[in-house]
């Protein structure tokens, strides 16, 4: 995910050409379950607005829906509206507040869970049955995308974890251990060694700006340390003022000298830039970095591999921040509910379109259904030849370490996470340590107070 990569993905091959190729590939296979097009034709006309994150995959999803519309609702056209990453929360909230929501939203789980608890989304249990309840890849549940009080509100679009990206040429040159065996101390030592021995190169990079990316990067460290923001099993009591939070903050503080100096203002784009331009040898990021490197910096692409995060020395956890991104349907002011449901089922049951979706930005958007993850056609991509282990780590091996702020340590949905990210509470906590030189203990207390304020203000969501 992240970064305005709208261009090409496969090394040396334009995205359009590539999509054309995969379309041809899939034309023979008309979809795993067929198109389920035995539906009444809609006579409605107009544009069906769809919100999606930056990247080509939202457009591929909408292309599938337009294929459905050509057959079943000729007067309709689905159109994707891309929301820039750092404005996703503001854009969503302002448009929803202005009562002009789109008809369909592809959004990350924290915001989806906030919206579903707020009563803004339509339950989609009827679609789950049509799509196939038993299709999910091993290691995930429907709940991860968005289930609230027994009702499903979100249909999976993909999952996408951020992992540890490592320049293996540097690791080998400096005689460092296999990153797959690292714990936090090894990661810190590697970052230090690289910074000291490679002139002009930072050892490690993560986002430290007051933004969503920092929230996501820090959450992985917090969860690996065994910490959490809230406890869903105890009325969402705030758990943030804990030794685990302090430990994660201390680790960021220890890593800071080996990061690029500008990291305190970095968000998604800048972390990718730092890795692709060779400013850093290691970074936390989603699969998008590899797609970009394949296009713009071939040697960096060839040398970079992805690993599950370094183990926490005591807990042994290697948590990532896995975005269980899904499609959700606004319940209010939505004139195309029935059409959207049908188009969504069409897209979700079409093997060719789901493979195209994953191929459109490899290895950023991982398949969510077994039949797609195991399909030989999915492996018909150059990244599978050149980086099969990395792709498999993003797609499958990372799932054992999934966590996110919307479902911390997979212990239950958190409808408050959207508010937490809207206010950048985690990022601000980190910045209090790395910019204001606040003691991690005090920063954790500050963060806990902010989280408690969110809990109190939104107690209605918690039932």
């Amino acid at each position, binding site marked *: 995910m992240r970064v305005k990569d709208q261009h090409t993905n496969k090394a040396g091959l334009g995205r359009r050409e590539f999509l054309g190729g995969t379309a041809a590939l899939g034309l023979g296979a008309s979809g795993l379950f067929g198109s389920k097009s035995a539906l009444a034709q809609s006579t409605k006309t107009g544009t069906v607005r769809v919100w999606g994150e930056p990247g080509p995959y939202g457009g591929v999803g909408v292309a599938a829906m337009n294929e459905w519309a050509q057959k079943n609702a000729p007067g309709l056209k689905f159109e994707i509206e891309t929301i820039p990453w750092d404005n996703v*929360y503001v854009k969503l*909230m*302002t448009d929803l*507040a202005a009562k002009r929501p789109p008809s369909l939203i592809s959004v990350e789980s924290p915001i989806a869970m906030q919206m579903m608890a707020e009563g803004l989304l339509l339950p989609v249990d009827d679609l789950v049955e049509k799509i196939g309840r038993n299709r999910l890849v091993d290691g995930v549940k429907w709940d991860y995308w968005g289930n609230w009080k027994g009702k499903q509100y979100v249909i999976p679009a993909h999952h996408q974890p951020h992992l540890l990206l490592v320049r293996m040429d540097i690791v080998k040159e400096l005689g460092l251990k296999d990153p797959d065996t690292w714990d936090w101390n090894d990661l810190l030592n590697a970052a230090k060694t690289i910074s000291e021995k490679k002139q002009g190169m930072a050892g490690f990079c993560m986002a430290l700006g007051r933004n969503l990316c920092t929230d996501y990067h820090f959450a992985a460290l917090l969860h690996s340390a065994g910490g959490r923001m809230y406890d869903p099993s105890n009325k969402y009591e705030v758990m943030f003022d804990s030794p685990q939070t302090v430990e994660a903050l201390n680790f960021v503080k220890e890593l800071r000298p080996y990061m690029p100096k500008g990291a305190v203002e970095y968000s998604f784009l800048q972390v990718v830039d730092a890795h692709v331009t060779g400013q850093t040898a290691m970074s936390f990021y989603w699969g998008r970095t590899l797609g970009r490197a394949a296009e713009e910096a071939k040697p960096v692409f060839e040398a970079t591999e992805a690993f599950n995060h370094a183990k926490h020395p005591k807990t042994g956890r290697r948590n990532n921040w896995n975005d269980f991104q899904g499609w959700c349907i606004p319940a209010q002011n939505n004139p195309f509910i029935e059409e959207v449901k049908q188009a969504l089922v069409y897209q979700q049951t079409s093997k060719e379109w789901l493979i195209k979706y994953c191929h459109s930005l490899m290895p950023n958007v991982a398949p969510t259904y077994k039949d797609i993850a195991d399909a030989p056609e999915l492996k018909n991509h150059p990244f599978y030849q050149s980086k099969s282990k990395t792709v498999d780590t993003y797609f499958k091996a990372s799932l054992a370490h999934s966590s996110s702020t919307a479902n911390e340590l997979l212990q239950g949905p958190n409808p408050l996470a959207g508010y937490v990210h*809207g206010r950048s509470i985690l990022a601000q906590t980190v910045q209090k340590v790395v910019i204001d030189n606040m003691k991690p203990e005090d920063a954790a207390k500050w963060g806990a107070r902010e989280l408690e304020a969110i809990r109190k203000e939104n107690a209605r969501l918690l039932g």
Partner: protein
Amino acid sequence: MRRLHALLSSDRAVGLLFIAPFVVTAIVFMVYPVVEAIRMAFYSYNPLRPDLSAFVGIANFEFLFSDPLFWDSLWQATVWTLLSILFQTILGVGIAMLLHRALFGMAFFRGLLLFPYIVPTVVIALIWRWIFNPEIGVVNYSLLASGIIREPVYWLSTPTMAMASTIMLNVWKYTPFVVICVLARLQTVPLELYDAAKVDGAGFIRRFIDVTLPQLREVLIVVIVFRTIWTFNKFEEIYLLTKGGPGTSTFNLAVYSFEQSMASLRLGVGAATGVVMMIMLLIGSIVYLRITKFGEEVR
């Protein structure tokens, strides 16, 4: 009927007709938003759940005054405004005096001066982000190439430098406004005053202090009041350049209000911030105009 006809055909009716569009526009776009903001400052209002809106009295103001970030933002807004206005005024007067000379091509230079003022802020902010980029920005490149610095300066990554950078952007963009106002006034200053001062033996500095500055006094008072109000309320330059960061080191009250309203969905607190800003600027402007005795000569 005859009275209505007489009224409609009178000059008074024509006058009313002419000002009607302005009055309607002002009511819709100025009076109504201000009244609505004041009303909202006393309500809790989450835009996602307007059904839960409730009167909360002065709770939003209590929240504001107990929030350390509000006071930080107020202090930073004051620093940002005062330094911006100081540099804009000094540079504006200086450049206007340079341009107030009958030299070949001066009209071209005067036109060029307007460039920062007419380019949209969003374009300028994005360009400045590139200019200030520590790795590939032209500022660091030039400073490194000329040997002034040995290591790249992280213009937007430390609180002090980020504040300095936002002030630089504001000064660069709005100094032309000061130049235009001052230049217009300079062109109406009677030359006899300078001739008389020269006869009395006044040098350049004495002529500037005793002739030019008093002549510019009225225009500078107006310019400073307007620039202070506009700068204090400024949102887009800071938000586009630094988003209020790093940390919250470049938050001003406008950014604070936006964050409370949009990111935190506390529209009541955002509105209360706006009301506080309005009151502060109103009091500040009245005090300033009283101190400077603006318009006394006219009376």
